[in-house]
């Protein structure tokens, strides 16, 4: 029971991070029917951006309040990563819109390679650690056998930040005219343009939102693990994409749900079975779910976009 509780907490924390990344995949797929393979690397890049800002704030500017530093880092990293997201769409995807279906996909793979190489060259190939941040934990429960169930401040920060940002994001998409335009373009771009919606601008906005949420994930990832490397875009990216597919690609609640499920499977599998096979477990579950629910858990059976 205690192990279960501990893994539940760990799994939800990890799942929040996957969920944030998965939204970027799902939104982009929803609006232009493309898998943005570079999204995982945008996440990795954002973790580096966060790392650099952290160092500047804490060691150079001497900000001692970690919470304040985190908040500033989060905002700056969201802005900068959004710019990257915007630029990638503008440079690598928009010129290919309307050409053959695989063209943007290939371009996305190129961007992915570019980003990881760029970071490798600029930041070096080794893992980049930060000084440990927020080390306090709350002991929830201690068993007689000596096993403790703890909730760390880090985990609280990660889950709270995720919850708050998802709420803001949800409000944006559901209640504002920007969000409405975004959903309209997702359903029928041609009709949206007949109603005066600038479709290109809306697609840009989608990339900006996706990158901003990925940068939140990147900052949280850095906070959680305290280390990041240029190769860290790939595996979390693939898992977040898996989460998006599992939840039903195109569905926003599905992306979050899928992220949480993947996070939970991964931690539970590591705890109860073998840590080496945790990724295999996550992907196997995906395969099984897709056999029985081809459009994912919350996805709608959809005809192909053209």
């Amino acid at each position: 029971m205690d192990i279960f509780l501990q893994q539940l907490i760990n799994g939800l924390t990890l799942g929040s991070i996957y969920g944030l990344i998965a939204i970027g995949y799902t939104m982009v797929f929803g609006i232009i029917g493309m898998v943005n393979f570079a999204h995982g690397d945008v996440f990795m890049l954002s973790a580096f951006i966060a790392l650099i800002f952290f160092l500047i704030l804490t060691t150079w500017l001497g900000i001692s309040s970690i919470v304040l530093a985190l908040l500033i880092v989060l905002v700056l990293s969201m802005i900068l990563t959004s710019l990257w997201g915007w630029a990638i769409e503008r440079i690598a995807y928009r010129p290919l819109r309307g050409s053959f279906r695989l063209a943007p996909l290939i371009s996305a793979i190129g961007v992915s390679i570019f980003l990881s190489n760029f970071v490798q060259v600029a930041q070096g190939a080794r893992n980049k650690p930060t000084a440990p941040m927020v080390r306090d934990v709350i002991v929830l429960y201690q068993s007689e056998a000596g096993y403790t169930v703890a909730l760390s401040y880090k985990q609280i920060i990660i889950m709270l930040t995720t919850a708050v940002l998802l709420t803001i994001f949800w409000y944006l998409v559901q209640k504002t005219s920007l969000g409405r335009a975004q959903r309209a373009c997702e359903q029928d771009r041609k009709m949206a343009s007949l109603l005066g919606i600038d479709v290109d601008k809306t697609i840009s906005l989608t990339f900006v939102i996706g990158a901003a949420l990925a940068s939140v994930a990147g900052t949280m990832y850095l906070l959680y693990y305290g280390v990041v490397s240029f190769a860290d875009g790939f595996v979390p990216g693939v898992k977040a994409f898996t989460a998006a597919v599992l939840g039903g690609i195109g569905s926003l609640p599905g992306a979050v749900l899928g992220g949480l499920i993947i996070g939970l499977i991964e931690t539970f599998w590591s705890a109860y079975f073998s840590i080496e096979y945790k990724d295999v477990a996550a992907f196997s579950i995906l395969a099984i779910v897709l056999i029985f629910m081809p459009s994912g858990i919350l996805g709608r059976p959809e005809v192909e976009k053209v």
Partner: protein
Amino acid sequence: MSMAEQNIGVKAAREPLLSVRGVKTYYGNIIALKGVDIDVNEGEIVTLIGANGAGKSTLMMTIFGNPRAREGTIRFAGQDITKMPTHEIARLSIAQSPEGRRIFARMTVFENLQMGASINGMAHFNEDLERVCTLFPRLKERLQQRGGTLSGGEQQMLAIARALMSRPKLLLLDEPSLGLAPLIVKQIFDIIKELNKKDGMTVFLVEQNAYHALRLAHRGYVMVTGNITMSGTGKELLENPQVRAAYLEGGHH
């Protein structure tokens, strides 16, 4: 807008609200419009009739620049819009209820109407909502229902209502009667007439249902495989033996 363009705008007061000149549109290498000339004057109801596949919907969409005219010019309110991006054309206050209705299926009726009002930033939203609900009481009862769950007739009403939400200077209607019961068709045509009479709204109406359309319209055009073959007042066309033979066989619906 420069002074020069504004001057043209003033001079254009006498020019038709919409004028299409020598427009050719292609799908790939296949020509769909072979040089179309059409005028719609302010305050008129003009109808375009023609068989399935004649190119009527293509013309409606070409006016909006999607697909784009490869040759010819399209002017609206004194401005050349031939090469303007679609969303900017819409912002000049042209609205379309397109072929196939194109309701946002996963948005509520209310949200669909909000989308219609987006070009003027929701300025008169409540007032206009009230107005379309009066015109289409069926929609009022279903404001919170998803667009995709509406019946065909209700979707058509929603498509027209959505187009009206932007207070368009020119309303394009592509086969509003398609697939609807005669009673609903009559309702919709009555509403078009009322909008034209009371609000002076200019309407360009595409129809296969030629009898009703020609009775309603001030003027009409007949399109055959990408060419305009006849034009005249609604009455003239109704009485024209060729039109009768081609489009009014089988009585008055």
